[in-house]
């Protein structure tokens, strides 16, 4: 009965209803149910095994399992999607749903439900999942509980996940920080979150970089879950960091070197200046056209006068593909100073080897050029002074080998330059002089002194001995190591010879002088005592003898007295030398003239002589007082002695002050001396020039010696019958 009723109802519905009596195994289908599988209700019988027969064997087990769990009350309804065989033989996807509707004796009795075909939906889902699976990026699809619905292969690889990810929970697989959970929640509420680049750290702490997006997906107008998409930027990022480091390194190097670097692009626009080139030029405020580059940056040819033509600018030459010279030198005027710059350069290419510009490096060689010039100059100067030196010069290695010898050395020693190559200087040094030289040389090489000078003897090529002064100085290089020695040889052989001769002459004079001294000693001591005795004895005789004998004794007495006087004079002469240590002092000439006049007052008056003192009263002369006294007395006495008896006689004193001397003139109008005859002997010992009773000839000799002992000199002018003028020249210093 019931069966009939239900059958009727089922027939009329448009859905594939079914009813199943669990206890009796009775099954009732609607017409539509059969139609889903391609059958008319007549074509299939409502047998107990019908469903099992049509269900895909692989799906049956699963659906039985789901059914059991509903019947046992574990699930509130039964649902299973399985493949069923269609009438045409293919399997279609069918979704089966049902619920227990009645119980008998506490056991489920009737269950009712329906099924419908889901093949298209199933294919659609499959396509979608395949789309996600096969997506080239890392993408994953989650339901609202963050269970995986699908994940692309890339995702699986990127996050090192198992293949069979579907159904697993994202939060179980990863330790997701709260920040991300918040983002997930917001996205599930409809927001979209993304970042172009975000830094993460993996389990080992290594950084990795992601671009990511999280957004909801919709089922109808309801949010079905989340889509996450990430791109791993780590490799790219690492490259980027590496490139940054490289460019920073290059920049640092470029800025650290003292080389100006400038680059341009293919349009001749300057694109890069390093620190040095910036310092030279500053940065232009606006691009400088190629035609004005030389003027703008003060680029000149190596002559520092001609501006560089555009085609000669090294950077542009390089850009044009021209090879630069080995020594491409230009001058850059920087703050009015000429900087000589050597330029090297290359073209620049991009990754496809397309030429995109050029770069030049500019080395400032101003100092090098300057020091080279100076060196050349000093080399030339040295060479010229070396060759033309008036003394012998030789460059010698510290080991004693000749490096260079000038002409003078050859002339001094007689050897040709060729000869010198065959022996060392040591070979021609006088053996006795070898040691002293090597002592000094060692001190020189050890750095204890920089030069020394010694007197040395060499053997001339002709066998003679050359006396020389040897000056040696050392030229040191790095670490003070001696590079070479400069030897200067001055020939003093002639000086040596003169010195020796002079020395001999001196020795001879000394000996003679000594003999003379001994002689004078004999005179003054012995001879004098004999003459003294003689005169004493004569006096005794005088007392005892009378008459003719007395006259004889008188004459003997006179001879004895003359002998005594002669001896006294001789003694005086020798005394002169002994008094050399007498000291000169400034004295007033006028006072000494007064003294002279007073001393000789008696004979001046007696002989009617005019004593004329025309000297300046302020004249001071440097003199030994006793000598000056004696000199003045002597000249005055001479003038009186040798006066002309015919004329009105005078003796006149005059002074004349010159720059460095004072001249005292003593003139008279007396007899005069024939200088032609007697000039040379005038001041000699025992020369008399007048037949005059008192003339002894010793006076002028002593006077001259006294004058010379005071550093002065005496001259005479005289004419027989006219008079005599003596001129004494005293050295004079302004200070006295």
């Amino acid at each position: 009965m019931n069966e009939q009723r239900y059958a009727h109802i089922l027939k009329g519905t448009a859905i594939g209803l079914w009813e199943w009596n669990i206890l009796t195994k009775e099954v009732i289908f609607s017409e539509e149910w059969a139609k889903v599988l391609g059958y008319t209700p007549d074509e299939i019988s409502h047998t107990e095994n019908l469903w099992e027969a049509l269900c895909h064997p692989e799906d049956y087990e699963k659906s039985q399992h789901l059914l059991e769990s509903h019947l046992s009350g574990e699930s509130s309804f039964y649902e299973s999607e399985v493949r069923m065989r269609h009438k045409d033989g293919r399997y279609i996807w069918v979704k089966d749903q049902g619920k227990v509707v009645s119980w008998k004796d506490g056991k489920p009795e009737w269950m009712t439900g329906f099924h419908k075909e889901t093949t298209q939906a199933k294919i659609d889902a499959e396509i979608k999942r395949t789309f996600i699976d096969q997506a080239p990026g890392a993408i994953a699809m989650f339901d609202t509980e963050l269970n995986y619905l699908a994940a692309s292969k890339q995702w699986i690889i990127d996050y090192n996940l198992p293949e069979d990810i579907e159904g697993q929970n994202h939060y179980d697989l990863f330790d997701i920080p709260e920040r991300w959970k918040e983002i997930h929640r917001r996205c599930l509420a409809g927001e979209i979150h993304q970042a172009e680049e975000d830094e993460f750290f993996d389990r080992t702490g290594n950084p990795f970089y992601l671009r990511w997006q999280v957004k909801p997906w919709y089922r109808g107008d309801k949010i079905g879950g989340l889509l996450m998409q990430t791109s791993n930027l780590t490799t790219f990022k690492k490259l980027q960091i590496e490139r940054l480091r490289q460019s920073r390194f290059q920049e640092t190097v470029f800025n650290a070197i003292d080389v100006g670097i400038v680059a341009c692009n293919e349009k001749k626009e300057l694109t890069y200046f390093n620190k040095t080139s910036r310092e030279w030029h500053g940065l232009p405020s606006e691009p400088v056209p190629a035609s004005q580059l030389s003027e703008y940056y003060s680029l000149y040819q190596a002559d520092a006068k001609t501006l560089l033509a555009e085609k000669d600018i090294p950077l542009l030459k390089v850009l044009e593909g021209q090879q630069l010279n080995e020594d491409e030198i230009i001058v850059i005027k920087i703050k009015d100073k000429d900087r000589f710059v050597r330029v090297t350069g290359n073209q620049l290419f991009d990754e496809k080897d397309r030429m995109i510009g050029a770069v030049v490096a500019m080395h400032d060689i101003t100092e090098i050029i300057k020091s080279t010039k100076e060196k050349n100059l000093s080399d030339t100067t040295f060479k010229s002074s070396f060759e033309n030196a008036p003394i012998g010069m030789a460059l010698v290695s510290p080991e004693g080998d000749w490096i260079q010898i000038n002409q003078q050395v050859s002339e001094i020693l007689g050897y040709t330059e060729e000869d010198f190559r065959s022996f060392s200087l040591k070979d021609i040094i006088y053996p006795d002089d070898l040691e002293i030289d090597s002592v000094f040389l060692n001190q020189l090489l050890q750095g204890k002194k920089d030069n020394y000078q010694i007197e040395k003897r060499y053997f001339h090529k002709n066998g003679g001995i050359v006396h020389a002064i040897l000056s040696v100085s050392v030229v040191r290089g790095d670490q003070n190591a001696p590079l070479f020695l400069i030897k200067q040889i001055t020939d003093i052989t002639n000086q040596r010879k003169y010195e020796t001769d002079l020395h001999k002459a001196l020795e001879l004079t000394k000996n003679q002088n000594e003999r003379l001294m001994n002689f004078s000693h004999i005179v003054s001591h012995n001879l004098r005592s004999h003459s003294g005795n003689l005169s004493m004895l004569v006096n005794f005789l005088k007392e005892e003898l009378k008459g003719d004998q007395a006259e004889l004794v008188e004459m003997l007495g006179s001879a004895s007295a003359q002998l005594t006087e002669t001896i006294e004079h001789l003694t005086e002469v020798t005394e002169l030398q002994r008094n050399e240590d007498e000291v000169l002092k400034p004295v007033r000439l006028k006072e000494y003239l007064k003294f002279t006049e007073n001393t000789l007052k008696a004979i001046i008056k007696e002989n009617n002589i005019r004593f004329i003192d025309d000297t300046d009263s302020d004249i001071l002369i440097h003199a030994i007082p006793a000598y000056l006294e004696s000199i003045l007395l002597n000249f005055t006495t001479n003038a009186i002695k040798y006066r002309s008896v015919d004329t009105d006689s005078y003796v006149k004193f005059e002074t004349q002050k010159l720059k460095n001397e004072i001249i005292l003139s003593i003139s008279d109008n007396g007899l005069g001396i024939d200088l032609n005859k007697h000039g040379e002997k005038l001041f000699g010992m025992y020369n008399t020039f007048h037949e005059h009773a008192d003339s002894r000839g010793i006076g002028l000799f002593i006077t001259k010696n006294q004058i010379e002992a005071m550093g002065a000199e005496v001259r005479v002018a005289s004419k027989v019958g006219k008079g005599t003028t003596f001129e004494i020249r005293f050295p004079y210093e302004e200070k006295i």
Partner: protein
Amino acid sequence: MKKKFNTVCLIDDDPIFIFGASRLMKQAAFCNSLIVYNNGKEALDQLKPIMASGDLEKVPDLILLDLNMPILDGWGFLDAFITFTPPKPIEVYIVTSSVSNHDKQKAKKYADAVKEYVIKPITPVKLKEIIERE
């Protein structure tokens, strides 16, 4: 005739001078007794005991001293003499043929002992001068 000096000592090596000097001294009534020594050493050797004896008669009032002598010259004698402390004042006259300034200056260094530097030959005038001075 009263003699001016009691004892006079002549130190000289020249026998002619000794002869001449003694004769002149006799003529001038110069002294009662004359002691003659031929060099400085002999003089010192003899004078030392005389001065030590305390016999003032024998100690000379005056010494005439030559400079140039063998064995010990006049300077040597003076150097020793000035260290003595004679029992009565003794005047020393250097009597020499040396006219050298050097010797004259040197004599001034012994000014305490040496009364005068007399140059030979000695004359009656000089002797008279000495007598009158003392």
